[in-house]
């Protein structure tokens, strides 16, 4: 995964167009954007702040503490914790998926 989604390689309008075309979806197969968790998730996260997206992909890669996420992404711990809270509110991350010093 490129820098935990810091850079978006492709416009989400392209992804949405492929998703609307059965022929193009069939052509892409099951592995369609597997690196990004699938086209729907990529589209959803592309509109979110970059810190939230990076934290999401770091968590989905297996980092379970805010310190580990911070080291992996290069974001400071405070930013990571803010992003985790926001992701939890949106239902993108489950409670307890990331532990912090404050026990979030």
């Amino acid at each position, binding site marked *: 995964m490129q820098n935990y989604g810091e850079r978006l390689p*492709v416009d989400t309008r392209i992804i949405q167009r492929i998703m609307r075309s059965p022929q193009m979806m069939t052509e892409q197969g099951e592995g369609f954007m597997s690196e990004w968790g699938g086209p729907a998730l990529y589209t959803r996260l592309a509109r979110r702040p970059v810190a939230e*997206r990076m934290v999401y992909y770091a968590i989905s890669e297996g980092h379970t503490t805010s310190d580990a996420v911070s080291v992996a992404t290069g974001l400071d711990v405070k930013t990571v914790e803010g992003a985790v809270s926001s992701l939890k509110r949106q239902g993108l991350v489950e409670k307890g998926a990331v532990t912090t010093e404050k026990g979030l």
Partner: protein
Amino acid sequence: MKRRLIGFVFGFGLLLLLCAVPAWAISNPGSVSIGDAAVFGDILETGDQLYFCRYDVAYSSEPSEDAEDTFQMAIYNSDGSFTGYFQPLHYYQHNIITIYLTSSQALTWGVDYKIRITGHPAIFSPLIEGTNMKTVTLSGGDWHDFKDMAEFLISQAKILEDDWGFALLTSTDKLNTTGSVYFTEAIPGLYNMLPEIFQYTASYPSVGNMGWTNATAGNFTERKGAILKGALEKIADWLGTTPNWIGLWIIGMFLSLVAAPVFAATRQPTVGLLVASLAIPLGVAVGVLDLAIYELVFIMIGILFAILFIQSRFG
């Protein structure tokens, strides 16, 4: 006084509504870069040009505004003046875009024009190189013959495919349906330019128009000889018509002369018509009638027989 104040406030509000313009809240991208710029010549006609650019207008969080409204590709002269040719981008992030110029619009081949990916001047102010625009100057190696275009585009598709993380090419390096959609969107007319780079293409068989010489009809017409031809021309001249009409009348009279006694003897109109119709090929054979008239009458007799047959069987 109060009424005047209310009227003033209402009028001012109305004026604000009339002068309302869409507000653009888009921020500068994280970066703007140009991966490749190239020009191809003699594509659909001699002297036309295609200016190609692979760019990356990198937004870390994708804007809600359409890229068509906010960014464009433009061609500038080497002195920095605008050539007048530009094309709005279809997409943000990593993608391709082109400008096609017909032979009458084409710029001077091989000149160091500047290709620029830039924010819309009305939305991004000021425009700053490296912040909301990127410029590259074309060099000698960027100008290509048409024969190099297919290989170049396939290599560009591979670059996009690797970065985007999904398939644009088939295993035989042809643009698949997804690749076809985005490449034809960036390069209108690509199906006509390079049909061989697509996995699926539609083509139409070319059917040439027949060159009718009417040689056979001419040969029949010449059969009447100089004496008969002169006679027909003189009668036609006297009656103020053409020799063809005279020939038709003569054969028509002959047809009546034959049809009448046959009908009198047999009392069968079909038999009368059948026997009399032999006069028509006779007229064609001696060159009095045009071959086209024979074909026309033949078809009419065929229809007539069909009607008589149907009437006799089912009437």
